[in-house]
């Protein structure tokens, strides 16, 4: 265990030293600032507009929050992939891994330590960005979307799916090929998610099935849709088919599937890495 923590610690230090953390923090702060200021003025306008029927205000506020969270969701995915895409392939390529792997440490400890480091960064980033969006919305408009905690956790889960896939790719692909693969899978899930939405609106079983298969291959989009479903007001769910929300409730089995998916991907990565000649 101490070896895993040691590797996690050095992974964190790398992010700090190579200014990855600073870039993420500064640009994240800029994102939140623009969102907060924009929301302030929009909210002032909305207050005037909805003075007669204030019960409709939350619906608009929710749409704004979901748009911001949709962007955060994408940033988290990019963060999960970009931080970890080079870590195994790069160190194997440069030979830097050799001096580490010949120490009395398991290969699994190296990989799990890196995972822990990147997952930790992702948690911090999620806390900053999702927390920032929710907090500024509350400060400006005194509005909180439904199920904020569950929604945030699901978004984090999606980030972890990408992180595990990128670590797996690193055990057998070059850095670039790995990046192309993980983003490609994300694209598959994205388009599959849309197919499923349209399919269910048009009552086309075939199209829905295409969507389901793609979300089994890569469950990231489904998780986002579930997060969005939870964080929307119930009334809104009936007519909103946009990337920012979800019209159909994902099945609960999908969560279990995603859990198994995460473990399977990590197991495969550990196995690959253990057998790999460094």
């Amino acid at each position, binding site marked *: 265990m101490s*070896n895993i923590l*040691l590797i996690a610690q*050095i992974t964190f*230090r*790398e992010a700090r*030293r*190579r200014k990855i953390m600073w870039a993420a923090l500064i640009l994240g702060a800029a994102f939140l600032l623009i969102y907060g200021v924009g929301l302030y003025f929009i909210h002032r306008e909305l207050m005037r507009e909805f003075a007669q029927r204030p019960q409709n205000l939350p619906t608009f506020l929710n749409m704004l929050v979901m748009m911001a969270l949709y962007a955060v969701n994408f940033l988290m995915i990019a963060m999960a992939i970009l931080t970890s895409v080079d870590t195994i392939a790069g160190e194997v390529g*440069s*030979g*830097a891994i*050799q*001096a*580490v*792997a*010949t*120490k*009395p*440490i*398991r290969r699994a400890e190296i990989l799990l330590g890196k995972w822990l480091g990147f997952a930790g960064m992702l948690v911090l980033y999620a806390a900053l960005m999702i927390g920032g969006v929710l907090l500024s919305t509350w400060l400006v408009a005194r509005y909180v979307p439904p199920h904020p905690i569950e929604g945030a956790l699901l978004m984090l889960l999606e980030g972890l799916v990408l992180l595990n896939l990128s670590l797996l790719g690193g055990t057998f692909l070059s850095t670039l090929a790995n990046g192309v693969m993980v983003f490609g899978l994300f694209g598959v899930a994205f388009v599959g998610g849309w197919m499923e939405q349209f399919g269910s609106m048009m009552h086309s079983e075939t199209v829905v099935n295409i969507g389901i298969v793609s979300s089994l291959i890569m469950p990231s989009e489904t998780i986002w849709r579930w997060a969005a479903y939870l964080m929307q007001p119930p009334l809104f769910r009936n007519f909103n088919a946009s990337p920012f929300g979800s019209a159909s409730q994902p099945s609960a089995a999908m969560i279990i599937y995603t859990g198994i998916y995460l473990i399977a991907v990590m197991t495969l990565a550990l196995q690959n890495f253990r*057998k790999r*000649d*460094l």
Partner: protein
Amino acid sequence: MTSSPAIETSGLRKEYGSKVAVADLTLQVGRGEIFGFLGPNGAGKTTSVKMLLGLAAPTAGSARILGRPLSDRQARRKIGFLPEHFRFYDWLTASELLTYHGRLLGMTPGACARQIPQLLDTVGLSHYGDSRLKTFSKGMLQRIGLAQALLNEPELVFLDEPTSGLDPLGRRMVRDVIRGLRGGGTTVFLNSHFLSEVEITCDRVAFIKEGVVVRTAELQHLVAGETSVEVRATGVTPAILDGLRQWAKEVRADGEHIHLVVNDEEDLPAIAAWVVEQGARLYALEPKRVSLEDLFLQIVGTSGEPR
């Protein structure tokens, strides 16, 4: 425990697809030996080291390191390794790098703090402990890599081309470090292209060619065992040439130049006296040691092209 050899391999083999990198690595390195591992580029030296260190899994064969199987992680507590072209996280400082590796070896922070300044001094980097590795030259990186390999006061050290990128001072430092290790009873497995260095530092060498250990020998026997002698003399009769064979295993005459190969340098005064006694006029008699380089070319050279 200490009675087992430092390294013992039998028929170790590594294939990458259809390419055979190492065909048959069979050797034994005793405790405390300074062992040179020689061979042309692409002969399988680095792959051999990688197998011994658990970085690459052998396709066949068996090996024990410090009396333990290759997969045993505990043995690695007692092993130091300087990879060829040492590369590491260049965003760390020299001290941070060594501390990190010390912790990986299971050293306490206190032990690291005690050991590291001393090691930095050994490799001539005592003023650079707080400098980032990205500001280091190739030679300095090699030095820090060497310090890294010595952190745990290892019983066995693998040095893969330790002097590559080093200036003459650095090469001398490596030589001194190896001498120090010998004094402390540490076994050293040295991969090197610098034959003159191997000649100075090693007790025993193995030659690897096309993935096979073709010869293992004690350096003393290899180098001191045969001495070639250039003689310049006039009035040398065929009888004298014949008579020289009592000392020399090879006699070649070319005019007044005679080339001898003798087994023992100690015979030279007797040879000189005898030649003069036989009535020849002796102008010069110059022993030329067979260098490791000659031997290397002899054993490996002729068809040493990579397959």
